[in-house]
């Protein structure tokens, strides 16, 4: 009969019985690797202090790179604009309180410093890109902004000098400090920027950077406190 024939291949199965004595046990484990990776990337749960410290550490690392400029790509790879903003605000604040803010014969206003630094950086970046440079826009802004650090330090030193020493000795000290930091800034920024420029136009790209830091040095040097 058909039913009997059909059941023949499975006939042996009816003899098999699973006794309750044999324990069926084992481990069914679903690999949770993917969710663990998500946990590492997701910074949503970390404490706020951790988030801020991470950014601060990145900014601090770049400051160190500016202090010892060598041809490294760290500044270019992980660019950020926190550092330039911090430096720009610090420099603009330090340049306040100068000679007679009331009449317009004084030093640069806060907004003027901001405009010079940011628009200067943007124009230099555009200039470098128009001449055929391969650096990206924000990388260049990042480098130019971070390399203002020596001049900000010089500004702080100048203000301290002006508190103590006045007259030509003070001026000579300030001149020396500003000159050294101007050279440092220009050297640091060219160390980072020249690699991305076409070879026969390097001077055309370096000159605006030189002019930019020269103008900022001029602002730092001519800061004279109100009397």
């Amino acid at each position, binding site marked *: 009969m058909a039913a009997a024939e059909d059941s023949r291949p499975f006939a042996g199965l009816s003899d098999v019985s699973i006794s309750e004595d044999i324990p069926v046990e084992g481990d069914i484990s679903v690999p949770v690797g993917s969710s663990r990776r998500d946990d590492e990337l997701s910074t949503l749960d970390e404490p706020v202090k951790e988030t801020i410290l991470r950014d601060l550490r990145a900014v601090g690392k770049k400051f160190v790179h500016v202090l010892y400029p060598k041809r490294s790509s760290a500044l270019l790879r992980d660019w950020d604009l926190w550092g330039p903003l911090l430096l720009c605000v610090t420099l603009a604040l330090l340049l306040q309180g100068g000679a007679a803010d009331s009449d317009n014969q004084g030093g640069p206003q806060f907004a003027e410093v901001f405009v010079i630094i940011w628009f200067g950086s943007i124009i230099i970046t555009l200039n470098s890109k128009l001449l055929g440079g391969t650096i990206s826009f924000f990388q260049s802004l990042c480098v130019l902004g971070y390399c203002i650090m020596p001049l900000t330090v010089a500004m702080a030193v100048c203000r301290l000098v002006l508190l103590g020493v006045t007259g030509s000795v003070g001026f000579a000290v300030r001149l020396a400090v500003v000159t050294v930091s101007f050279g440092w800034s220009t050297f640091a920024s060219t160390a980072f920027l020249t690699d991305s420029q076409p070879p026969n136009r390097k001077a055309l790209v370096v000159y605006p950077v030189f*002019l930019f830091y020269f103008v900022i040095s001029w602002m730092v040097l*001519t800061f004279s406190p109100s009397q």
Partner: protein
Amino acid sequence: MASPNDLQFQEFEEAAELLSADPGASTLSIPATNSPPTASGGGEDVKLDLSEDEEGQEESSELLGGQKPAGGFWTFEYYQSFFNVDTMQVLDRVKGSVMPLPGRNFIKHHLRSNPDLYGPFWICVTLVFSVVISGNISTFLSQKGDPTYHYRPQFHRVTIAAVVIFMYAWLVPVGLWGFLKWRQGTERQIGGYSILETVCVYGYSLFIYIPTSVLWIIPHDWVHWTLILVAMVISGSVLVLTFWPVVRDDTRVMAVATVATIVVLHTLLAVGCKLYFFQTAPIPIPKPTIHGALNTTKPH
């Protein structure tokens, strides 16, 4: 190269004859941004000589190297074509603007249909800051002996200098170009310059004022006026040598008037800068002693 003047004159005639003989012939044209094509095959195309002298060959090959601006004005490559210069080229153009030789048209000899915007822009920026900084130093030096003088950075001058110099270096060439095109339309004038070349020659002609303004730190009046004279002669002759071949085909009166206007505007810029930024007379400070006494009593 013998007698460049004759060579240039022959250029125009020969090229004009060639063109009238065969209007459909290909002409080497300088890229112009806003010119509608006229029936005669590009009215403002510079008819460069297709003759066999070496300079012509160099110019042709450079032109055929593709100097036309690429893409529309909304693409980045369009503006990149205005910065297609190397360091040596910029230095060569600067040298040409400082040492004008009669017969050497700046545009023909140095620009060679590759006008750039790098030179004019950065020369203007440098001039702005050099004028302001030198003026500040000069004022300081001339009033050092005055005990009531208190040093001021005078930073507001940057804005004023920037506005004046940029307006001169960019609006005047545009106006001159428009005027020349208008005259070209009414009178038969062979060869005009594109707007870019006019801006370029004006920008490079301002270069001599940068060392002049630095030398103006010397606080003597006669030094200032001598330097102005020298700078104006050099700078003005660059402009005159460039524009004279274009306007001399016009009526005598218009030609002289055009050249005179160019020179007068240039003079006004130089003298105005000198008078405003470099004042050798002491700036009157209103009642310094009373203010000084008040300031020392007020806590700051």
